[in-house]
């Protein structure tokens, strides 16, 4: 997908390149790619023989062959010089070299100090750390800070700025480039995560065929969870915030552009480590990584997850600092808090949560890692540790994290709905305040994940009460959305359709969550498919559907071209039906007592039809994503030109050209009133000179 989003420009560049540099024809490139792949696979087999392993390992050999083949194809079609001039390629290669060097050094040190040279956990972990360090140094994201610290003169601007697709593969400090980098990185991992779980769902249609052995099934569902949350949802939302927060508040960039670049470039290695975890044997703890299993589990796949999540968490803390400072300090004149779009409210609530709570999961994961590597004893009862301590620390982050994963989506709904309803957002102030209310309320409910875990019984009722209270501000939002559509002359365009599905799925998720908050019901439903169905409805309604609505809504602004409405509506139909088909049977399975994270069930229990329905639903969701990819590629090439404001929306981003100019606003707009006052006579959100944000509207 990374190349997909930039493909028209990429194609143009390559055709120019081949004219200038006399590059090779496509057939020859493919031939070179095949040779490269065979060479890569062969070298892997030789190395495996040298290490004393059997020469054939399907996973590693195929992966290395595909990667080297892809690299050979790119270097043949683009030219090796062009490829190596990209910061990302150089960084990745240096990172691989650094990882190998780190692993060799660790092995040598171990041998010198009398230990066996190879122990997977420490050697691989130190390899990962040196690899990431070399990658960051080689990328050049640290150069400016090094110059600052030594008092050297600041770097001069590049004489010829990089243009076209190459910008996205280089370190760039523009918030719009970083936004797209984040978003596309997240989208790249999305189909992988879905496919991963489709294998698991296929297995569950008939577990007795034994498509997946139990360990592989557990690795797949665990990796699916971590991948989706930390490598898909976080980067996608960071991307949306990076691109649109400055535009929507009338700023020219985020507060700390270099820090922004640094925090983006932590994301690709994080994703890579989470994927590579499967190559290193996976991990079978579920995404929660509870000790003692996670601390004693033998496969080094666990270490990859711990380090990968650490990088993703660091990135989200830095993004939080950036976005909060931007919103607090860089709003356009007149943009008071109650004139901000709801997306901004939800962004600050989200990043506020990640700023405060990410350190807790960071420490919890670090403690598990230290138990694995150094034999420390935080959670080990035989050393005086406490197992439940991990669960407290973990959920202290991970419950607020579920709000990190949905709040921005709810903000998107609140901003897109009024545009297509042609009415003001009902109860704007209430919806705005609901964001910090959910965020603050969400911090004191975490122990409801542990009702069945043996925590002190007196904690149960207080946490039940707080849990049910959080439903109130969430309910405020749903009521406000419903009231916004009341008696509205709606324009049934694709973004609105996705918003409808999102609201309904979110409602399903919310209502199925309430029973889980009630202690006696939870004791029965805990760890069943009911929980899985509940949070998938939440993720579909709060994340996936809202993000697709945002893609249809904002794609014209970002690319200057419209997406196809026809494909969009088919995609909507496919995904909505697919999601319900996925979620509802899961709820039924849970009520019947099907446990999650188990790869088997008795046929006599009549679970098969429900499992099959879930698998079909998952397949439909995946097909919808394929349609989306096709729609994006086609529209980038020859979609109709969008113009500045195709939806007749009133927020600031629609006052500038599509795509927005390099510094967003030639003249900073002056904000006069709330956003989304559609149909209210005389209300203007903002104006620049004589241009008003209600221009281009057909009321």
């Amino acid at each position: 997908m990374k190349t997909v989003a930039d493909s028209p420009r990429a194609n143009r560049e390559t055709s120019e390149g081949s004219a200038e540099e006399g590059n090779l024809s496509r057939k020859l490139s493919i031939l070179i790619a095949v040779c490269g792949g065979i060479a890569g696979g062969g070298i892997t087999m030789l190395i495996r023989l040298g290490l004393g392993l059997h020469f054939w390992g399907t996973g590693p050999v195929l992966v290395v062959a595909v990667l080297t083949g892809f690299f050979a194809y790119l270097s043949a079609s683009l030219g090796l010089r062009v490829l190596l001039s990209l910061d990302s390629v150089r960084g990745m290669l240096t990172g691989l070299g650094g990882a190998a060097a780190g692993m060799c050094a660790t092995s040598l040190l171990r041998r010198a100090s009398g230990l066996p040279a190879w122990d997977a956990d420490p050697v691989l972990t130190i390899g990962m750390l040196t690899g990431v360090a070399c990658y960051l140094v080689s990328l050049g994201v640290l150069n400016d800070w090094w110059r600052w610290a030594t008092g050297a003169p600041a770097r001069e601007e590049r004489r010829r700025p990089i243009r076209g697709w190459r910008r996205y593969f280089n370190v760039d400090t523009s918030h719009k480039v970083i936004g797209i980098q984040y978003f596309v990185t997240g989208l790249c991992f999305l189909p992988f995560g879905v496919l991963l779980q489709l294998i698991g769902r296929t297995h569950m249609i008939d577990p007795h065929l034994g498509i997946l052995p139990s360990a592989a099934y557990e690795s797949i569902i665990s990796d699916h969870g971590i991948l989706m949350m930390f490598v898909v949802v976080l980067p996608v939302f960071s991307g949306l915030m990076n691109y649109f927060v400055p535009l929507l508040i009338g700023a020219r960039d985020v507060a700390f552009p270099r820090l922004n670049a640094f925090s983006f470039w932590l994301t690709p290695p994080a994703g890579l480590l989470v994927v590579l975890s499967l190559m290193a044997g996976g991990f079978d703890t579920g995404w929660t990584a509870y000790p003692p299993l996670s601390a004693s589990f033998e496969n080094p796949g666990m270490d990859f997850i711990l380090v990968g999540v650490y990088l993703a968490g660091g990135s989200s803390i830095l993004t939080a600092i950036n976005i909060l400072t931007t919103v607090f300090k860089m709003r356009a004149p007149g943009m008071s808090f109650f004139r901000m779009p709801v997306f901004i409210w939800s962004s600050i609530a989200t990043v506020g949560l990640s700023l405060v709570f990410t350190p807790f999961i960071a420490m919890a994961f670090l403690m598990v890692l230290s138990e694995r590597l150094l034999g420390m004893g935080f959670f080990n009862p035989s050393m005086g540790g406490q197992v439940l301590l991990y669960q407290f620390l973990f959920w202290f982050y991970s419950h607020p994290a579920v709000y990190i994963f949905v709040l921005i989506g709810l903000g998107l709904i609140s901003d897109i709905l009024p545009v297509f309803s042609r009415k003001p957002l009902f109860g704007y102030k209430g919806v705005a305040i609901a964001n910090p209310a959910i965020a603050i309320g969400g911090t004191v409910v975490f122990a409801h994940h542990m009702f069945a875990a043996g925590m002190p019984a007196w904690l149960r009722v207080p946490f039940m009460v707080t849990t049910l209270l959080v439903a109130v501000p969430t309910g405020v939002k749903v009521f406000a959305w419903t009231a916004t559509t009341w008696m509205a002359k709606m324009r049934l365009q694709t973004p609105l359709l996705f918003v409808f599905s999102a609201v309904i799925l979110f409602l399903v998720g919310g209502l199925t969550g309430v029973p889980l908050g009630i202690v006696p019901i939870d004791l029965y439903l805990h760890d069943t498919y009911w929980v899985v169905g509940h949070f998938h409805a939440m993720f579909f309604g709060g994340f996936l559907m809202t993000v697709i609505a945002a893609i249809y809504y904002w794609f014209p602004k970002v690319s200057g071209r419209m997406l196809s409405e026809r494909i969009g509506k088919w995609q909507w139909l496919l995904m909505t039906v697919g999601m319900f088909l996925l979620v509802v049977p899961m709820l039924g399975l849970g009520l019947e007592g099907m446990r999650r994270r188990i790869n088997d069930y008795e046929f006599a229990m009549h679970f098969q039809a429900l499992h099959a329905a879930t698998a079909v639903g998952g397949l439909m969701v995946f097909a919808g994503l394929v349609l989306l990819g096709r729609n994006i590629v086609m529209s980038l090439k020859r979609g109709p030109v969008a113009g500045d404001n195709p939806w007749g929306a009133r927020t600031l981003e629609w006052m500038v050209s599509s795509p927005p100019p390099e510094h967003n606003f030639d003249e900073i707009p002056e904000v006069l009133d709330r956003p989304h006052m559609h149909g209210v006579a005389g209300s203007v959100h903002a104006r620049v000179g004589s241009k008003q944000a209600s221009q281009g509207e057909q009321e």
Partner: protein
Amino acid sequence: MAVSVHESAGARASRLRTGVALFLVSEACLFGSLFWTYYYLRGLTPGWPAHFPSATLPAFNTLVLLAGSGTAWVAARTVRRGSRTRLSAALLATAILGAAFLAVTFWEWGHEVFRPWTDAYGSVFFTLTGFHALHVFGGVVLMLALYARTVRHKISSRNHTTIDVGSLYWHFVDLIWILVFTTVFLIR
């Protein structure tokens, strides 16, 4: 069309202060999770602490670190008056005091009768003091960087926000140390 995107130094300084304050909030939460771990284990373990580390050296270390806070404060005051020699001396003194703190801490770690992998107490003791030492190390690097910038005339009485936030960071690390010292060495 060329767009003028220059902005006042005041706006940038104010953003830097906000950003550093938010960073310190996040750091405080990091230590919060460690204190939580310490007190949770302490509350559920009979006979805690298991090993009674001596408080004499850490008490001396507290004075060293507080002296560093004093010199950092002097630096933040001096920079506004524009005396470059005194400013660089104050920054260097802060860095040296931080390095002395680290040296004493390492010596003390080497002489504890327990190791991180001895038991849960050892684990949380070394993690808590270790994370704090890591932050002192960060402070020393920061002070050296500010020293280098001062010597190279990058810091003046009108451009002193980095000194302000540097000294704020140092005070923060000091405050955390007082909590660590009280938790680990004083409350028995």
